């Protein structure tokens, strides 16, 4: 397979040389390529945890691969086929460095797109920036990716965890000013980012409002004990900054204890199929969260043109895929954003131009984002999605309410 691609690339190069000899130089001069792009092909690199503790996210990589297959079937981008090379990093930083170096030096890709995980991205950031290879639309919500001055070749995609947490804090201060808040968070970068965002959001009121901070480890089989401990402190607002499995446990246990605080769960764990259903719909009634993308299982989007396209894509290119898995929605949206950027690049497929175009998206709306949520970037704003809308769980689905709230957090 690989050698066939190489032959194809070599043939393309030969064709390009021949074309150069025949056509006028003026026409040719408009086309500009860096490593990884030719007249017929654009090579995109990616790393994903297909194995290891975070392997559930591997679906994102598979969705993106399927998306570019669809793009190629439709004739490619500006006539060029997209070749999507994705490797397994097992969520291990040393492996991520090895695989990204393989992408850059052996496969010679144009950009590294949507690598997943904060540790893996931190490990490869310095290398990619030194080599001036775009680290496009990283799949992590850490705040540090929006730092165009220090890292001009790295750009985020989804809203940062901190900005989301600030939105919750602001909403609570407005709607429930005398709240007694307990926070359950995962003891890693993900949980701590939310904790910081919440504290920043409450500002001077943080010390008096937050009555309890309880952390758990990903390696714990059950977090029921933490919930009982939190209930004993008697807060009336319960913030659940947990990954899907633990969020489901937290909502379920709260229901079983007959305890009814106002619960807010992180956007990471809003999947109806993998969180709300296992937690029990009766326990999940009234749980709040915020969203930026549509839910694949939510009946209100059945007639939505964007989600219809998404659904048709899943049926045709990922038969058998689980539509309740939010990763399928996520991968589609991210891949569509990349396709848009490559389209905007036209015939100037240099790494510098890819970065320039990625930083000049104006009101772009992928099919899967909520109405009103738009992607905007600029030379000083490397946080593409920064809007969210509050939602409440009712019956068997999320109901959006209020307006989309913007929560841009500047890099430190």
């Amino acid at each position, binding site marked *: 397979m690989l050698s066939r691609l190489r032959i194809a690339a070599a043939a393309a190069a030969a064709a390009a040389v021949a074309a150069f000899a025949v056509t006028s130089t003026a026409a040719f001069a408009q086309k500009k390529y860096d490593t990884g792009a030719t007249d017929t092909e654009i090579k995109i690199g990616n790393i994903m945890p297909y194995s290891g503790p975070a392997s559930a996210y*591997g679906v994102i990589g598979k969705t993106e691969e399927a998306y570019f297959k669809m793009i190629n079937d439709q004739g490619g981008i500006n006539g060029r086929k997209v070749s999507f090379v994705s490797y397994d990093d097992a969520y*291990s930083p040393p492996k991520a460095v090895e695989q990204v170096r393989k992408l850059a*030096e052996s496969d010679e890709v144009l950009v590294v797109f949507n690598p997943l995980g*904060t*540790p893996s991205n*931190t*490990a490869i950031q310095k290398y990619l920036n030194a080599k001036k290879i775009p680290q496009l639309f990283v799949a992590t919500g850490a705040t540090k990716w929006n730092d165009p001055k220090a890292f001009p070749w790295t750009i985020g995609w989804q809203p940062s965890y901190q900005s989301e947490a600030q939105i919750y804090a602001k909403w609570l201060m407005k709607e429930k000013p005398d709240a007694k808040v307990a926070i359950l968070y995962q003891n890693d970068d993900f949980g701590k980012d939310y904790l910081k965002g919440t504290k920043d959001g409450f500002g001077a009121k943080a010390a008096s409002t937050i009555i309890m901070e309880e952390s758990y480890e990903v390696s714990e089989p059950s977090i029921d004990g933490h919930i009982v401990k939190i209930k004993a402190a008697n807060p009336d607002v319960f913030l659940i900054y947990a990954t899907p499995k633990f969020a489901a446990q937290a909502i379920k246990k709260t229901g079983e204890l007959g305890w009814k605080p106002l619960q807010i769960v992180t956007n990471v764990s809003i999947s109806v199929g993998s969180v709300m259903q296992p937690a029990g719909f009766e326990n999940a009634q009234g749980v709040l969260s915020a969203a930026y993308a549509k839910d694949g299982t939510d009946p209100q989007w059945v007639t939505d043109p964007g989600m219809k396209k998404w659904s048709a894509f899943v049926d045709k290119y990922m038969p058998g895929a689980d539509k309740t898995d939010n990763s399928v929605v996520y991968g589609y949206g991210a891949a569509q954003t990349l396709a848009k950027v490559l389209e905007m690049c036209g015939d100037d497929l240099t790494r510098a131009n890819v970065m320039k175009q990625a930083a000049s998206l104006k009101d772009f709306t992928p099919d899967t984002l909520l109405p009103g949520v738009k992607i905007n970037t600029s030379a000083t704003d490397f946080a593409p999605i920064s809007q969210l809308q509050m939602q409440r769980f009712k019956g068997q689905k999320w109901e959006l309410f209020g307006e989309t709230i913007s929560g841009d957090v500047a890099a430190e």
Partner: protein
Amino acid sequence: MSTAEDIVTEAPAVEAVPKRAMTLGFGTSLVVLAVLILVPLFVKNFIIFQLTMLLIYALAVLALNILTGGSGQFSLGQSAFYAVGAYTSAILMEHVGMNYALTLPIAGIVCFGFGFLFGQPALRLSGVYLALATFALATAMPQLLKLGYFEHWTGGVQGLVVTKPDAPELLQAMASWFHKSISQDMWLYYFTLAVGIAIYIASVNLLRSRSGRAFMAIRDNEIAASAMGVDVALYKTLAFGVSAGITGVAGGLGAIAVQFVAPDGYTITLAIQLFLGMVVGGVGWLPGSIVGSAFIIFVPNIAESFSKGLSGAVFGVLLFLVIFLVPHGARQVAIVAQQLIGKLKKN
């Protein structure tokens, strides 16, 4: 209780290895060395980086081999020593501003102390129980690194980014006479190779020395060893210390090569990989370490090229085949090859 004890004493299934068989012949060693020196001159930087990682993991596997193959003690906690070494180097380089080469002996000494101390309580345990105790150490380490108390130094969950060293100016000047340049990767490879060879020679000599014989006596029969006057407690903890020290140096080199340390890089998976590398390379056969290291670096990549979704399963099948066909790992292959060559010579 007595049945439990029986099981425990029977558990170490490590075969006695005569000490000559623990190393390669002089001629073969030279050939391997020549290959290791020449290959980087002809390949891409990325492959050089992979080879550097190969050497680093080989060192860590070698360390485990001294412990298990030499003194007969099990450890699933090597990732913890590796992490301590990596963090020691990273912290000294980034916070203290120390030269990278100087941080390695310090990482080694810190880990030696750590391993020696851990060896004290571990003395009371043997076989599977010792394996479990070290397993606990490996599971605890990533969380310890995240503790808020150390966060100022360790960078907490975010880890630490390390600056990669350039080749010394003198060498660069010499290379430029030949119109060549020495990349950071190439320099780091040869640096790692030099450290690796030094540790390999030291290990071989250690196992051939009085202490090495004491290790092996303990491995073969603890009671007989103590009857012969071997201080069992001292040598067992010493083996732990030496093994941890070498793992620490490997960890330090790993931090410099990867340019990043984070708790997620040193989970129990790493400890199991190292254990796997030792078994595949041949328990107690030091040159097998590099074969075992190659197995844990390259076989997952091969498995992935078969199927992305089933890479774990393919890896499992390949591992099973190796264990089934050559249960003694690379050592067995080497012995068979040696016999074949011997026959050819006779004909």
